[in-house]
C-alpha cells in the first residue's frame, strides 16, 4: 500500500516530533517577543513584525493541517490493519503527558531562575523581613507539594494509559490513607496559620508612641502628603473644607494645623517607625509601598492606618541593587479611574541628620495669604450655593 509514511514512523516518535514542533514554535515566538524589547525597535519596523506574525500564523495553520492529515492517514491505516485507533491515541497522549511533565518542570525552573530574580529587592522594612521569610517557607512547602503532585499526576497518566489487555484495579477507598491526607495538610496549614497570625498581629499592632505620623490623602490621580511639623501632631481636617487651595480640607482653626507641611516627596528617617494616616478624597485608593511590603486601602469617610519601620536608606538600597536610579515608591493599587496606572509619589529614606536638614528647608503651608485665599474660595462656594438655591426657588 502507498500509505507507508505513517507506518514507518512509530506513533510515539510522531508524538514527540509534534511536541518538539510545538515547543520550538513557542520558543521562537518568545525569542521574537523579547528581542524587540531589548533592542527598542523603531515604530516603522512595526509593519515587519506584524507581517512576521501573519506569516507565523499561516505557517502554524499549515503545519496544523499537515499534522492533522498525517494523523488521519494514520487512523485509516490502522483501521485497515484492524488495529484500534483508541489505543494509539492513548499511547500518544500518555507520552505527551510525560514529555509535558519534563518540559513543564524545566519551564517552571527556568521561570524561577529568570523571572524569579526580577522580583523586589530585600525588604526595606522591619516587618517585611519577617513576611519575606514566611513567604519563602510557604514557597518551599507549596513548591514541594506542587512538584510531587504534578509528577504523580502526569506519571500516572503516562503509566496507566489505556490498553485493551489491561483491566483497572478496583480500588474504591482506603479510610486510613484518606485520613492521613486530611490530617497532614491540616497540620501543615495550622502551622502556617499560626506563623501568619503572629506576623499579622505584630504588623497590625498599634504604632509605637515615638512614630512619625504622616497624613496621606489619595485623590484622582495624586497623593497629598502632610507632615505634622515640629509638634508631631497633625491638624484635623474635614472634607467640607476642601477647595482648590486647601486640597485636603485642613481645619486651620486647629492650632496643630498651623505648622503642618505639604511635600512632594516623602522623606523618612531610617530606623524610626512611621505611621501613615490614610484617607481618600473621592474614591477608594490603595497606598502600596512594595519595597516596604506595606499596603493599606485609602477609603473616603473611613480613616485607615499602617505603620512600619524603614531599615534601609535609599542610598544603601541603590548600592545593594546596583542601580543608581533606584527609588522607593508609593503607588496606587486599587482601581480608581482612567489614570490609575500612573499615580505615584517618591519615598526617600535618609539618616537622621539628612532628615533634619530636609525638614528645616520646608515651610509650613499655612500663610496669611493662604488664609485669605481660603476665605475667598469658601465665599465663592457659598455664593454658588445661594445662586443654586435661588434658581431652585424660581423654578
Amino acid at each position: 500500500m502507498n500509505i507507508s509514511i505513517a507506518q514507518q514512523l512509530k506513533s510515539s516518535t510522531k508524538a514527540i516530533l509534534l511536541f518538539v514542533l510545538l515547543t520550538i514554535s513557542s520558543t521562537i515566538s518568545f525569542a521574537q517577543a523579547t528581542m524587540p524589547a531589548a533592542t527598542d525597535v523603531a515604530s516603522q519596523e512595526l509593519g515587519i513584525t506584524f507581517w512576521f506574525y501573519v506569516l507565523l500564523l499561516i505557517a502554524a495553520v499549515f503545519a496544523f493541517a499537515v499534522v492533522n492529515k498525517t494523523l488521519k492517514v494514520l487512523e485509516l491505516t490502522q483501521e485497515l490493519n484492524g488495529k484500534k485507533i483508541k489505543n494509539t491515541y492513548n499511547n500518544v497522549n500518555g507520552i505527551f503527558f510525560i514529555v509535558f511533565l519534563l518540559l513543564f518542570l524545566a519551564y517552571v525552573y527556568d521561570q524561577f531562575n529568570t523571572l524569579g530574580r526580577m522580583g523586589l529587592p530585600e525588604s526595606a522594612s522591619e516587618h517585611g523581613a519577617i513576611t519575606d521569610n514566611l513567604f519563602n517557607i510557604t514557597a518551599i512547602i507549596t513548591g514541594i507539594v506542587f512538584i510531587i503532585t504534578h509528577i504523580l499526576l502526569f506519571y500516572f497518566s503516562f503509566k496507566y494509559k489505556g490498553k485493551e489487555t489491561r483491566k483497572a484495579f478496583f480500588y474504591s477507598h482506603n479510610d486510613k490513607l484518606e485520613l492521613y491526607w486530611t490530617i497532614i495538610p491540616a497540620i501543615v496549614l495550622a502551622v502556617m496559620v499560626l506563623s501568619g497570625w503572629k506576623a499579622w498581629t505584630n504588623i497590625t499592632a498599634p504604632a509605637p508612641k515615638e512614630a512619625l505620623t504622616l497624613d496621606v490623602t489619595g485623590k484622582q490621580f495624586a497623593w497629598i502628603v502632610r507632615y505634622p511639623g515640629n509638634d508631631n501632631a497633625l491638624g484635623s481636617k474635614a472634607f467640607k473644607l476642601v477647595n482648590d487651595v486647601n486640597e485636603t480640607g485642613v481645619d486651620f482653626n486647629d492650632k496643630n494645623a498651623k505648622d503642618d507641611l505639604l511635600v512632594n516627596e516623602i522623606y523618612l528617617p531610617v530606623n524610626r517607625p512611621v505611621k501613615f494616616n490614610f484617607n481618600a478624597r473621592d474614591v477608594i485608593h490603595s497606598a502600596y509601598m512594595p519595597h516596604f511590603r506595606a499596603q493599606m486601602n485609602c477609603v473616603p469617610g473611613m480613616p485607615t492606618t499602617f505603620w512600619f519601620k524603614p531599615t534601609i536608606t535609599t542610598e544603601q538600597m541603590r548600592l545593594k541593587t546596583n542601580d543608581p536610579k533606584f527609588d522607593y515608591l508609593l503607588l496606587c493599587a486599587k482601581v480608581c479611574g482612567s489614570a490609575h496606572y500612573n499615580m505615584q509619589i517618591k519615598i526617600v529614606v535618609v539618616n537622621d541628620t539628612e532628615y533634619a536638614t530636609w525638614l528645616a528647608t520646608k515651610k509650613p503651608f499655612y500663610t496669611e495669604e493662604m488664609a485669605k485665599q481660603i476665605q475667598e474660595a469658601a465665599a465663592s462656594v457659598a455664593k454658588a450655593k445661594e445662586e443654586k438655591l435661588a434658581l431652585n426657588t424660581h423654578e
Partner: protein
Amino acid sequence: MSDHTTHHEEHHKETFISKYVFSMDHKMIAKQYLITGIIMAVIGMVLSILFRIQLGWPDESFPFLEKLLGKWAQGGRIDPAFYMSMVTIHGTIMVFFVLTAGLSGTFSNLLIPLQIGARDMASPFINMLSYWFFFLSSVIMTWSLLIESGPASGGWTIYPPLSAIPKAMPGSGLGMTLWLISMAIFVASALMGGINYISTVLNMRTKGMSMTKMPLTIWAFLLTAILGVLSFPVLFAGVILLIFDRGFGTSFYLSDIFIGGEALPNHGGSPVLFQHLFWFLGHPEVYIIIMPALGISSEIIATNARKPIFGYRAMIISLIGIAFLSFIVWGHHMFITGMNPFLGSVFMFTTLIIAVPSAVKTFNYLATLWRGNIQFTPAMLFAIGLVSLFITGGLTGIFLGNASLDINLHDTYFVVAHFHIVMGSAAMFGMFAGVYHWYPRLFGKMMDDRLGYFHFWLTFIAVYCVFFPMHFMGLDGVPRRYYSFTSFDFMKEWLAVNRFISIAAILGSLAQFIFLYNFFRSIFKGKKAPQNPWNSNTLEWTAPVKHMHGNWPGEIPWVYRWPYDYSKPGHDEDFIPQNVPLSQTMSSNLPGDYGTHHGSKESH
C-alpha cells in the same frame, strides 16, 4: 410522572418556537445556555486579546484597533478609560455569564434530570424563565459595550464610590447603570435556576437513587445551587442599594466625598459595606464556578480511568466542607481595607482551612488515576488538565489567604495569576471536559477526537505560558488593572514578559477556534453518537440518543448500585450501569464485597 407522559408525547405537536425558542425541555434549555455561554465567552476572549495587545505593545499604534473601536482607540491606541471598561466587562462576562450561567446552567440542566432519573426539572416553566432572564441580562451586558459613554469600568467588583459617582470615570455613568440592571436580572435568573435544581435533586430522584448513590456531578450541582440561592440575594441587595445611591441620593456607601470640584452631601455611608456584601456573594461565587467543574471532572476521571472514584464519601464530605466554609472566608478579599485586624485573623484561619478539603479532592483524583486503564478522550485530557491547574492555582491561594503575606500581594499580578489559573482556567477546562464528554447526549453526534487533542494541548500549554509568569510580576509589586507599565521604571523590565504573555494569549485564543469549528461542525456533520460512547455507568446514557420529552420511553430506569462500578472484579465488562440489578451480575457484585460504604441494602 410515568407512562402518562409518554402517552401524552405522541399527541403533542411542537412548533418551531415551542421547540427551539421558548422550550421548556431541560435538554433544549441546556443547549441554549451552552450556546449563549459560548457566544459570551468569545466576546470575553476578544476583549482580553484587545487589552493584551495594549499590555504587550503599550507604545505602538495599531490602525486596525481604530477601525474596530472607533473613538476608543484614536490613532490606533486604546484609550485608558476603555481599557478599564474592557477589563471590567471581560471579568464580568467570564465570571458570571460564562462560568456561572454557561457552565452550571448547561450541565445542571442537562444532567440533573438525566442522571437522577427524572422526566424533567421540577418546574420546566421556571427553568425556561431562568434561561430567558439570563439571555436578557446577556443582551444588556453586551449592549453596554456599544453605548457612547462606554461600558462599566470600575473592575468587575464595581467598588463604590468609583462605581457610584458618574463623575468619577466615564464608565460610571450609563454603562454602570446597564451593568447593574443586567446583574439584577442575572441574579433573578440564577435564583430561578438554583431553586429548580435543588427541588429537582431533592424530590425527583428515581427509585433506588438514594443521596449516596448519586453521581458526584449531581452532588456538585446541588451544593452549587445551594450556594447560589443563599449568596446571590446578598449581591442583589448590594446592587439595589448601589442603584439607590446612584439614583436616589441615599448614602449607603458614600460619605465625605469631594469630587469634581464640589463636596457631595452624602454622609455616614461606608464603601467597605459594599465590599462585605459583594464578597459575601463573591467568594461563594468562585466555588459556584469551580464546584460544577470539580463534579464534572470527578465523573469523567472515574469513567475514563475505568475505576471507581477514589473515596466517594470523602469527595462528598469535602464538597460539603468547601460549600460550608466558602461562606465564612469572604473577608480574605478585604485584609487591607482597614477592617479590624482580629477579623482579619479569623478570615485567615477559615481561608487556610478550606485548603484541606481541596487537598483531599486532589489526592483522591490522583488515587483514582493510580492503576487505572486511562482512556484519553479529549474530555479526560481536559479533566486531567483541570487537576493540574487546580493544584497550581490552589497552592498560590495559600499565600494569598495568609493575611501577613497578602499585604504585599494584594491587587498585584500574583492575584491575577492565582484566580485565572484556579478559577478561570480550571473551571473553563471543566466546561470543555463536560462539552466533549456530554456532546453525544446534547446533540446526538460525536465531536472529532483529533481536533479535541489539538485543542487540549495547545490550550494547556497556552494557559501555563500566559498565567505562570504573572506570579513573578506580582512578586515584583506590579499592580493589576494598570493600563500600561511605562510610567514606572521598575515595571519597564516586564515589557518583554508582557509581550510573551500577549503572544501566548493570542495563540491560545486562536486554538479556541479549533474547538468552535469542531463544536459547530459536529452538530451537523458529526458521526452519529452510539447509545453509550464512553461505556459509562450513569443513567443519562440509558436514555435514547434522540431527544424526547420525558427523557425515557416507558418506565424510568430504577437504580440499584452506585455510579462507579468500573472494572469490578468478576464481571466480564469493565462497567456496570447503575440500572443493572445486583442479582444480574456475577456473585462478586453482591453488597458488602468492596467495603461498607456503598453496598446497597435493598435487593431487587
